[in-house]
């Protein structure tokens, strides 16, 4: 899990994926026929494989949700905007790092004893919060940060409990780590890996990557929402930790291609790999723009369930990650043996 530790802790808020890209690029150097970075910053890692087999695009997004400094107050506190979907309720009192110098900071808001009656029961809006970097005034703050600086959550990766992992940005560094492993494995299928940018702000990188790659088939590897926790009724849970990789059925941007979905289910069942369906139709992922690229591409999504995604900390289970990888390998072998959706 050292690869996932490094990928989880490196900052890469949407639009600022360079550090993530560098780590992946270095790891992929000896495993690729070709590596290139496109105009938007997508990292394309290509293993040409056998020309008789369909060209498979596998996408995982490098970006994570985070914040951006929008203004520095006279007091030296930083106002910010959210980059990607973040619930305001998870932000107060969170430890963050700001800008390329990784300046430590804490998200502050009006303390509870100074809130007016009524305010205490309301969610504090992110516009009313600020980042405290310990500066005593605007000029001092400006020496280390500027408006436009990205802000990421300062969360340490740790293993805990029974094979569970805690860290930030598992959405979608879990997918990135799986894709790295897949590229290292021994496969004949022409593998066009796209480590994409700006998924969290509108599935942007995948759109141009798919256009460039022109795949015959596509898979998207995601870290997805999971709510097998207290206070959530069964039918409100999207996925459950430990029940295996989650196959997407439908979300706001695509349906799983029926043939691809059948192939994944068959691969799981024939190899006794546990799997579950993603039981929510909210959200969207890179499969949307990929499936609608050019004349259309059969696409499906394989996700690792992650609790508390889009927050400073998420929790996933190693076995789901590993079973997802087994499923991908089995599915690729089926393609080598002639499976077509």
């Amino acid at each position: 899990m050292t690869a996932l530790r490094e990928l989880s802790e490196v900052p890469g808020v949407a639009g600022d994926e360079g550090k993530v890209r560098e780590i992946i690029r270095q790891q992929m150097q000896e495993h690729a026929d070709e590596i290139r970075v496109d105009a938007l910053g997508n990292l394309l890692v290509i293993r040409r494989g056998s020309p008789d087999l369909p060209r498979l695009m596998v996408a995982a997004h490098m970006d994570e949700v985070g914040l951006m400094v929008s203004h520095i107050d006279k007091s030296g506190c930083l106002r910010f905007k959210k980059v990607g979907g973040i619930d305001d309720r998870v932000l107060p009192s969170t430890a963050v790092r700001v800008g390329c110098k990784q300046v430590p900071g804490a998200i502050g808001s009006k303390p509870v004893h100074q809130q007016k009656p009524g305010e205490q029961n309301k969610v504090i809006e992110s516009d009313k919060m600020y980042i405290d970097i310990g500066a005593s005034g605007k000029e001092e703050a400006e020496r280390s940060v500027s408006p436009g600086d990205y802000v990421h959550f300062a969360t340490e990766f740790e293993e805990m409990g029974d094979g569970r992992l805690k860290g930030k940005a598992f959405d979608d560094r879990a997918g990135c780590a799986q894709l790295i492993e897949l590229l290292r494995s021994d496969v004949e299928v022409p593998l066009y890996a796209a480590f994409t940018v700006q998924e969290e702000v509108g599935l942007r990188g995948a759109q141009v990557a798919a256009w460039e790659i022109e795949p015959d088939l596509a898979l998207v590897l995601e870290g997805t929402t999971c709510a097998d926790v207290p206070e959530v009724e069964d039918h409100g849970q999207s996925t459950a930790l430990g029940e295996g990789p989650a196959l997407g059925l439908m979300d706001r941007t695509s349906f799983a291609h029926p043939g691809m979905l059948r192939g994944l289910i068959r691969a799981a069942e024939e190899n006794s790999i546990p799997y579950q369906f993603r039981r929510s139709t909210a959200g969207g992922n890179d499969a949307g723009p990929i499936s609608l690229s050019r004349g259309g591409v059969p696409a499906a999504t394989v996700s690792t369930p992650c609790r508390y995604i889009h927050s400073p900390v998420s929790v996933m289970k190693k076995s789901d990650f590993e079973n997802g990888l087994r499923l991908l390998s089995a599915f690729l072998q089926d393609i080598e043996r002639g499976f077509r959706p």
Partner: protein
Amino acid sequence: MKDMIRAFVEEFGVAGHEGRVRTIIADEIREHVDDMHTDALGNLIATRGPEDADATLMFSAHMDEIGLIVTHIDDDGFLRFSNIGGIQPHRLLDERVVFANGRVGTVGVERVEKMKDLKMEKLFIDIGCASKEEAAEYVEVGDAASFHRPLVDMGDRLLSKAMDDRIGCAVLAQVLKEMDSPHNRIVGVFSVQEEVGLRGARTAAYQVAPDLGIALDVTGTGDTPKARRLDVSLGDGAAIKIMDMSLITHPGVKRLLLELAEEHGISYQREVLEFGGTDAGAIHLSRSGVPSGCISIPTRYLHGPSEMVDCSDVRACVDLAVALCGADLSRIDR
């Protein structure tokens, strides 16, 4: 046409699950077209007309209908679901729904105090099973369901689920049968996944690369008691779309359609729709842009279990589309 319309609307074909509708449409048009194939996303693409045509005219009618998708089966055998396409929860209350395998259920609701608390997550489907195990024999998570309503022939008017947009599919099938087009290559696209974001038409338009794109789809009416203002009425003819939320009709296309309706004595009305969109929205933004428009079939009670059309409007839409097939498309200018 009524038999064809009945067959089309009664078939199961929720967005993402258009296979069966595609099969019956393919059977219906097979002997009338020169070529026909299904693409990567499931669009049925049929072609008629000369190889060395002056221009390619693409029609698009979507095969998919709105519906529900099962997200969870509880221990007592009740199914929780999410919507596929735009459905308001109140239109589902006590409604019967049917799965692809024919299993029928009714939509029940948790106790709610006020109508405004009626949310999709308060609803469930009861398929008459007493346990999770029993329900799982008929339905799995991810299965789709549609409204369970047969077509009612009211004489001049027809009532059914899925008029949106099987009536457009029927119009397109009829056009492919009746058309005479010495100059233009006609490509009829029966598209998928319109209801969830104009998806099929987008990739089909890329493949076809047409010179002119026309959606054949339903539109609302403003002719019922205290309806939202919309100058479209059932029985007043084909609706020539001027604009909706997805498209401002290309001025040359608009002019051509209006002129053709006048020249051929086809009854028509102008449609300015303040909500919704059609496949033309996706087609006109394909590649470097495609002049596009839409011939709409006026339909009451859209996105509900009982959508109503008038046969004379359907006929007018066929006539206008057939006239367009035979037209000189170089008449389209700015």
